[in-house]
């Protein structure tokens, strides 16, 4: 066994190249990371990365990707992480998950047309999954796409969408057969966001603008007879549930990640920085015990992600591990937020320039521990999928969805 990534000389050389480039190109921003001005800088970083093939490094070159190996992708992800950035550095769920799904399910023509703008960072794409009626029950979408000549006419509403700076396209699931059987009546579309009949309206949430770049708030999107060309239907009419299984598998955390245990370090260091009242809290046995609890929570979470990263990259047969990591992340995050509340006291709640030097890091963690309970499927849904994969009470154990072609 080996729990550490072992880097090849090639990877080490690539890391040096990436690190130097990022040091030059990652924008230095002041004030609100998510202001329009700062967002524009991150968008430019995305385009610059895309131009070099570093935005979607493993995607094929012919579709605008980098054509690089997984080894390179790991290095890129890790180096972005050092800057506290994801790849892309802004909210682009429809690009990340839609791009991957189109690689599996799109026609050759669609791949050549739809993927390059995404993979090169030229466009931002939002995924539009849930509607007011759908919740976690994606298959029950009531957004309709009805064929009319060479076009589909879209009507309906999608909620909890995107972020604060708009998108170029929407990647979404619609009902294409109102009378069809469940799971056999839905299809996927890539929809230009500027079509007539599309309205975007802001939704304000508990997370309240402090979730990361471009994630300030969510949106409701209304389709009122928006007409999308039929060539933008991906994976075949009424075949949408299969595309969804690819999409959801990726969303449900089977990808894993390698990361430092940053929240333990951050919390301990913040605790150390708090003014003491007599003996420092870190000298108190109970406080130290809470710190140990936080370490346990975060280490288990780190190890589940590490395991999934390894399984995914080495093509191990995955079963319940994806939803397990996802479920654990949600619940462990909630428990960790509670420990922070006890450990740091009311300081954990602050996003106050005078009394909180972290820029609201813990305030944001505490809020997002709640807000993160539902996206990508609620904790309950993760448990339902885990149970199916373990095969509890069923004849057959469910298999994980296809994530590579």
């Amino acid at each position, binding site marked *: 066994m080996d729990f550490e990534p072992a880097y090849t000389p090639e990877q080490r050389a690539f890391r040096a190249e990436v690190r130097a480039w990022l040091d030059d190109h990652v924008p230095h921003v002041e004030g609100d990371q998510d202001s329009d001005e700062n967002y524009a800088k991150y968008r430019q970083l995305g385009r610059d990365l895309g131009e070099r093939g570093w935005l979607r490094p493993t995607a094929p070159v012919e579709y605008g990707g980098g054509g690089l190996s997984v080894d390179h992708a790991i290095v890129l992800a890790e180096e972005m992480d050092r800057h506290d950035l994801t790849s892309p550095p802004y909210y682009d769920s429809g690009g990340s998950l839609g791009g991957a799904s189109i690689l599996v399910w799109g026609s050759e023509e669609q791949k050549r047309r739809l993927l390059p703008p995404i993979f090169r960072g030229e466009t931002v794409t939002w995924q539009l999954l*849930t509607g007011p*009626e759908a*919740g*976690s*029950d994606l298959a*029950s979408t009531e957004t309709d796409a009805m064929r009319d000549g060479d076009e589909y006419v879209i009507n309906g509403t999608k*909620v*909890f969408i995107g972020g604060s700076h708009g998108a170029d396209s929407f990647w979404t699931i619609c009902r294409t057969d109102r009378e069809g059987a469940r799971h056999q009546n839905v299809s996927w579309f890539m929809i230009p966001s500027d079509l007539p009949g599309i309205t975007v309206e802001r*939704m*304000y*949430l*508990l*997370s309240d603008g402090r979730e990361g770049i471009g994630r300030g708030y969510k949106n409701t999107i209304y389709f009122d007879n928006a007409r999308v060309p039929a060539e933008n239907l991906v994976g075949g009419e009424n075949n949408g549930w299969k595309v969804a299984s690819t999409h959801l598998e990726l969303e449900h955390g089977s990808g894993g990640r390698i990361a430092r245990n940053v929240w333990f370090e951050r919390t301990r260091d913040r605790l150390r920085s*708090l*003014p*003491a*009242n*007599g003996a*420092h*809290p870190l000298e108190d046995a*109970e406080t130290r015990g809470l710190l140990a609890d936080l370490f346990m929570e975060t280490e288990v979470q780190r190890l589940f992600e590490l395991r999934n990263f390894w399984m995914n990259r080495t093509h191990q047969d995955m079963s319940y591990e994806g939803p397990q990591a996802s479920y654990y992340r949600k619940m462990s995050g*909630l428990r960790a937020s*509670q420990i922070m*509340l*006890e450990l740091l*006291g*009311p300081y954990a*709640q*602050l*996003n*106050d*320039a*005078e*009394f*909180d030097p972290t820029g*609201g890091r813990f*305030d944001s963690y*505490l*809020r997002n521990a*709640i*807000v993160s*309970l*539902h*996206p990508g499927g*609620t*904790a*309950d849904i993760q*448990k*339902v999928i885990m149970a199916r994969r373990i095969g509890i009470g069923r004849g057959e154990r469910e298999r994980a969805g296809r994530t590579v072609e």
Partner: protein
Amino acid sequence: MDLSLSEEQQLLKQGVEDFVAREAPLEAVIELTDSELGYSPEHYARVAELGWLGAAIPEQYGGAGLGLTDAAVLFEAFGYAALPGPFISSGVVSALIVEEAGSEEQRAELLPRIASGQAIAVLALTERGYGWGPEGVHMRAASSNGDYVLDGDKLFVHDAIGATHFITAVRTGDDGALTLLVVDASAPGVSVRRLQGFTGSECVVRFEGVRVPASAALGDGGAVEHPLDRALTKAAPVLSAYQVGGGQAAFELAVDYSRERRQFGQPIGRFQHVQNHIIQLVNHVDASRWTTYEALWRHDSGKPGIEVASHLAKAVTSEGFVHAVNYSHEVHAGVGVMHEYGLTLYTTLSRSLYHQLGSPRYHRRRLADLLVDYDLGPDPLD
């Protein structure tokens, strides 16, 4: 044994519930949280007028002279409505401090004004340093020509915006005696700012060369540790009752939603995962309710074990309110985190009140210290 509310308490409860349903529906409260003051002065005036603000203040000082349990019935209904305002901070916490620590003259002067709403007094106790009880008070008030001069910050002061007085805990004299100074909020050098974050009404109150006369010190010159502690021990379960009300609201929202919202072809409440959230939720609320009311009953009837019961109640309730809200969020998923829905009012409250008058850990530690030698009392059967 009788665990029901008395007829008077039932009437009071009904009256308060009608009041908040009429005057402060959830939509109105959501709007209030975005206002500068954070609460409605009209509500405050109206509550004073109805005699509720002085519920726990003795009649001789202009209050209604009710018991703590009566006050709790009232504030539980406020908590249910997530009604913001310095009702408990001024009408209960500060009133009890003045009552316990003040001289007769101070009581006669301050309490009627608190009861009538003319004065809004809030406790300014905690400072930058870690630790949230009186032992954490380090701020000194220097003596100067018979006056005290205050310099320093008080942090995490609840309901400071709009307050007229700060009951400010400081150290005075060579021995650093704990002293409670009643400071006029309009005195030169006093400034207040709301703290930003996942917070409710928490503020920083800043004192810069603020002069107050020696007579601003509560009491007749004796030590105030014990009176302060007594007041906070009494106030804690009233605050807990407010949290119980909030938990009850989170419960009802979850039950209603589970009956209406459909997923996978049926109301989500049919799913045992969802049922489980609601069951854990109601267990937390009921645990909070009964520990709280037992503590209140001990206070009102002068039973032994008052301190143990109060610490127990605040620890169970502060923790329970957070869990209750979390479970309600699990039931509501996306809808629950939308500002306009209303659940997030309780979410924020649960985090904010978690530390007010001491976090669960603070109370658990005090409880633990008492329990080592705690005598559960004579067997009730003897």
